């Protein structure tokens, strides 16, 4: 029982990381119908920036927040400069552009920071936290708190602020949005900025566990895709929940099904998602989108 609780919490911690990145993917997908394959690599890049800031002597949380700001601006700039020109191109061209971004981020990071693994600090204490007989990793708990806080902020932003409302409107109905005076192009750029922020959070939270290297987010991104698909690519809430589900299932399967162990749990998580998709093709919380032609 204690082990079960421990493993669930640890699953929630990684799940939060998948959730953040999945949310980033879904936000961009909803607004522009584009799957941003570079999302994970942008997150990795942001994490390196945080590492450099910390190395330059900034306190952790200052570096953390500065990185979020830099990621936001970076996301906006990338949308304006790289995505905007291909906005009306066929979907495959846009996919190619995001794949190009992926490769560029990866090799530029390797070029600047080398491919050697770098330890990345955790802002949380190294001592485990003991509740009764159950032992929790402090980083796991901190990670959960940070992701929850970010998710709460973003929920409040979209739900209660005029700008959040305008961004939702622009994503769902660009034509009507223009007719009420919303600058749809800028809303999409802001969406890329926010997505980059979620990605950066995910990167900085996972880096202490995996240690920092240019391929930091490769696996995470696949899980995030799985989470987004599981939740239905059209539902931000679903993507978040999908992230937590994938995290927990991955962890429990790895722990309890002895012949699977850590090597195969990746496969099992993905197999589970395929099963869900066979039963519910739109994902658990997705809705069928009728495409206007």
């Amino acid at each position: 029982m204690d082990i079960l609780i421990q493993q669930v919490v640890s699953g929630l911690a990684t799940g939060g990381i998948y959730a953040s990145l999945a949310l980033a993917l879904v936000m961009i997908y909803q607004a522009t119908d584009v799957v941003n394959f570079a999302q994970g690599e942008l997150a990795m890049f942001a994490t390196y920036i945080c590492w450099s800031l910390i190395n330059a002597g900034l306190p952790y949380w200052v570096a953390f927040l500065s990185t979020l700001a830099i990621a936001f601006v970076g996301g906006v700039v990338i949308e304006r400069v790289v995505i905007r020109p291909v906005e009306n191109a066929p979907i495959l061209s846009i996919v190619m552009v995001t794949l190009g971004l992926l490769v560029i981020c990866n090799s530029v990071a390797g070029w600047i920071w080398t491919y050697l693994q770098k330890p990345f600090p955790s802002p949380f204490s190294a001592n485990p936290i003991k509740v009764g007989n159950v032992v929790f990793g402090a980083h796991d708990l901190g990670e959960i708190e940070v992701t929850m806080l970010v998710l709460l902020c973003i929920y409040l932003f979209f739900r209660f602020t005029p700008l959040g409302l305008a961004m939702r409107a622009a994503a769902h109905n660009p034509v009507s949005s223009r007719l009420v005076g919303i600058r749809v192009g800028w809303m999409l750029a802001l969406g890329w900025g926010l997505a980059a922020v979620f990605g950066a959070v995910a990167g900085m939270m996972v880096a202490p566990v995996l240690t920092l290297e240019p391929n930091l987010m490769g696996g995470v991104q696949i899980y995030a895709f799985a989470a987004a698909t599981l939740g239905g690519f059209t539902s931000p809430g679903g993507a978040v929940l999908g992230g937590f589900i994938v995290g927990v299932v991955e962890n429990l399967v790895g722990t309890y099904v002895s012949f699977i162990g850590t090597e195969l749990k990746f496969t099992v998580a993905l197999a589970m998602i395929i099963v869900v998709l066979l039963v519910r093709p739109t994902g658990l919380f997705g809705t069928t989108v009728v495409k206007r032609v």
Partner: protein
Amino acid sequence: MNALLDVQALEAFYGRTKALHGVSFSMATGGITTILGANGAGKTTTLRAISRMVRTTGTIRFEGEALERRATEDVVQLGIAHAPEGRGTFVHLTVEENLRLGAWGRRERGNLKDDFERVFGYFPVLHERRRQAAGTLSGGEQQMLAVARALMLRPRLLLLDEPSLGLAPLVVREIFRILRTINQTGVSILLVEQNAALALDLADHVFLLETGRVVMEGPSDVLRKDDAIRRAYLGY
């Protein structure tokens, strides 16, 4: 001349096809003008041209300012509200959120309370449904929402594209009664309609569009008596 809206030699293009072939008209401040015409005559396209949603040549001036080089969002900021064909409802959002968005392009953003009170006064049913997703409204209610959303801009000019489409006669009469009230508060209206009888009753000036050209124009009481109009559009 103190025209509110002045359109000259307007041509509009969808890809390579030309939908308007040199439309010219102007409307005075404070009036209700209607554009009549059969399906495909170019009524919607004319409104889209004003809102800069279609490629055009020719000139469009609103209170003396040229609109041709503006983006749709900037036209809105001049105080031109457009309730488009198909109503343009944000179906995922609530009625209240739809209305909030209507005020987005307005110069003074603050205090929406008076505006909410005003549109809920016109359309009490929207107040009842304010927390409901707009996509769950009936057609008539969505049309009311489209007009209400446009009013949230506090527009100088209201562009309405077939507000009567698909609605029960009683609902249509209600909406048109409210349009008259709105006009009396100083909002000029450019109304596109297929329901000629209703439109002629409401409007003070009429333009008749046929395959992308203005073929007739005049005060509505004059055109109502015109034989050709009677036969083609009023059916008696």
